[in-house]
């Protein structure tokens, strides 16, 4: 929670991020959506899209960005990506084929859009969500009060039995 301490408002960084961010976001979306026919794909594009939020947090402060960004968005990206990937894979199994056997999907160009589907809805969502989530989780760090109750318990048990108390306290 003390990550805001290290924040210094800088006109140079804020202006740079304001100008650069739209292009970075566009480039990330381009890599993601064009990955099937050009270098790139969901992983690289998702990372670039995630970095957009990191740049905003760097320029305008981590706590304001954290308040602006809903936790449900980050969790939804990460968990929803895994679910979308799994759902596309399982859909072909429900239609009587193997996992991710795209040609069974009842859509136009099934293989092509199946690949696009897992790259965009699956991998890009998971990676961008994880990059954003790791950043905010690291920024929050772990605070002493979050660990205080268990620390006290370990301390008490170690006093009772000096040699084995710590191990049991951690269990």
């Amino acid at each position, binding site marked *: 929670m003390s990550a805001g301490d290290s924040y210094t408002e800088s006109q140079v960084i804020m202006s740079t991020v304001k100008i650069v961010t739209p292009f970075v976001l566009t480039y990330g979306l381009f890599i993601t959506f064009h990955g*099937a026919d050009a*270098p790139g*794909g969901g992983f*690289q594009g998702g*990372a670039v899209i995630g970095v957009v939020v990191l740049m905003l947090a760097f320029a305008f402060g981590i706590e304001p960005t954290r308040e602006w960004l809903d936790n449900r968005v980050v*969790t939804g990206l990460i968990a929803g990506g895994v679910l979308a990937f799994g759902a596309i894979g399982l859909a072909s199994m429900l239609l009587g084929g193997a996992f991710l056997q795209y040609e069974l999907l009842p859509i136009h160009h099934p293989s092509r859009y199946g690949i696009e589907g897992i*790259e965009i809805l*699956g991998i890009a969502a998971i990676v961008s969500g994880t990059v954003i989530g790791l950043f905010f989780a690291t920024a929050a*760090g772990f605070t002493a009060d979050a660990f205080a109750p268990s620390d006290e318990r370990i301390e008490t048990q170690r006093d009772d039995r000096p040699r084995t108390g710590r191990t049991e306290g951690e269990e």
Partner: protein
Amino acid sequence: MTPLEVALIAFVLVTALATALFRDVLSAIIVFGAYSLGMAIIYTVLLAPDVAMTEAAISAGVTTILLLLTIAKTVRPSTDALFESVNVPAVLTVGAFALVFGAAVLPAIPAIGAESAPVWSNPEVTQYYLENTYAETGVQNTVAAVLAAYRGFDTFGEAVVVFGAAVAVLLVLDREVFA
């Protein structure tokens, strides 16, 4: 080797050495970012743009930001010394590894683009993907086709690993929310 490749390899070696030797953590993180950028350009020169993009985005970008965030949240020991004091046994051990690698392993690796390289000497494998990817999957990027179609189940496993990493960070930090 072209002059560009020589310059890039020299740049990467110098920045890697600087990362190991700088006493100040902030300087080490900055040269580490430069090292990753050099590696990304090397991958581009070696015609591996997919790898280069990953290196640039994850290693030069995200990792640098996460490391900067870490030193912002921890104590940065102030020091007058520019370089780390050299640990002689460690340097000897690493030097021995580098010597074995340079003398024994490196000459055994086929030259870039050599016909004896496994990627060309097994044309039935490599050429199969290059020739049939578009017809079978409808995408032109063979890397994407192998990733998402031919080895799609492996990629699902990797995606779940990334998901697991996010969950593990929450568990370690004893948090219930990301943002």
